[in-house]
């Protein structure tokens, strides 16, 4: 019997090794798998390369992983924000490497890895600092930049609901990078609010088929409503 459900967060992040490339879902806090990140901090893996749209907000989640000095390099599109003080300090101190990539190229580089594409020509960024040193080509009169896939050892993502085969549905804009990251990692771990019986998910509505998911862990229903500030 296939059962991808693991019983603890510790089991969910087991064997993430030092030096691993780890994709972390989320756009800001929407879709960020906070419980898995906390478990990864506790687990202790170091020298990680992290792939995320941002570089942490505030002091929790990805920012806490950075603060614990577990990250050697981050691949992202938008590190600098009003509350990215943890990343900012590490970057200015030269303690973290940054690979900046336009957001759409980031998503497509991840998708390409998952789809077995060896590289692709994107019009985004042509003629800019972020295309320097990259191969370019004119196709049908338009300029393109060769972009490479981003593979990962692990992806940590957040979804709403799963079954034991690892089929996933998401919630609203928390979907963001989850589906493409799930495709691109050798081991994808999904943190979900609910687990249902096989057949409990409408097959027409499954966004990530279980073939892309290796582990599922339930973390309860917390955090749906935003607290008023």
């Amino acid at each position, binding site marked *: 019997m296939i059962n991808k459900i693991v019983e603890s967060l510790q089991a969910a992040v087991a064997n993430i090794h030092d030096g691993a490339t780890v994709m972390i879902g989320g756009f800001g806090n929407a879709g960020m798998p906070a419980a898995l990140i906390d478990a990864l901090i506790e687990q202790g893996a170091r020298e990680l390369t992290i792939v995320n749209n941002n570089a942490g907000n505030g002091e929790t989640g990805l920012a806490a992983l950075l603060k614990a000095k577990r990250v050697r390099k981050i691949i992202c599109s938008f590190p600098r924000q009003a509350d990215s003080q943890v990343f900012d300090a590490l970057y200015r101190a030269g303690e973290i490497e940054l690979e900046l990539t336009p957001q*759409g190229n980031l998503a497509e580089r991840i998708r390409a890895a998952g789809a077995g594409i060896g590289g692709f020509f994107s019009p985004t960024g042509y003629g800019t*600092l972020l295309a320097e040193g990259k191969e370019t080509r004119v196709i049908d009169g338009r300029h393109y930049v060769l972009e490479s896939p981003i593979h990962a050892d692990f992806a940590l993502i957040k979804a709403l609901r799963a079954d034991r085969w690892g089929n996933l549905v998401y919630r*609203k*804009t928390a979907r963001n990078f989850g589906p493409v990251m799930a495709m691109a990692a050798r081991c994808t771990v999904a943190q979900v609010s609910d687990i249902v019986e096989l057949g409990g998910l409408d097959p027409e509505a499954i966004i990530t088929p279980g073939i892309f998911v290796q582990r599922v862990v339930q973390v309860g229903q917390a955090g749906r409503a935003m607290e008023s500030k």
Partner: protein
Amino acid sequence: MTYQRLTREQMAARVARDIPEGAYVNLGIGLPTLVSNYLPKDREIILHSENGLLGMGPTPLAGEEDEDLINAGKQPVTLLAGGSYFHHGDSFAMMRGGHLDICVLGAFQVSADGDLANWHTGAPDAIPAVGGAMDLAIGAKQVLVMMEHQTKQGDSKIVPQCTYPLTGIGCVDRIYTDLAVLDVTAEGLVVHEMIAGLSFDELQAVTAVPLISDFQKKDA
């Protein structure tokens, strides 16, 4: 003659007037976001937000915010009936693939050739962050820029060549400022519209590239 520069709200209202019925539109973060407040109520216009939604609605009522329903500026929003959610790969395919009709972007500088600089000041101590700016710049059928005509120091933000790092090359179609509406054409920047009381010579005096008046162009 005397003239009164448009306020940010008036600029937003001016841009909104040009967005047609049925358009799929992405409004960039900052000044362009204001445009949503002025979209004509009698037109169906579908707003795209690159974090993964089409059919974005207004800010929710206090107490009804949902942390899983945000826009590209990470602010809480709502979804209109008929709206949809999708992942980042699809969202940027909508841009890169040329499916969006219009995007409205802020800018530090725009060149006479329509080059755009809006993501990075290039200052040595600045931490670069690009987000979706470069994808948006090349990813809509029409790219509209909305910005003050001059910097706070009085320098023209319309320049012969951008001195800030580029976001995209030759990508801007039209510029809306607090003084004028300008079209980027093969012949140069054509003044489509000026605010009341402003003369062409006055506009030219605060613009660092030669302008073509709509009238001159018709005569040529």
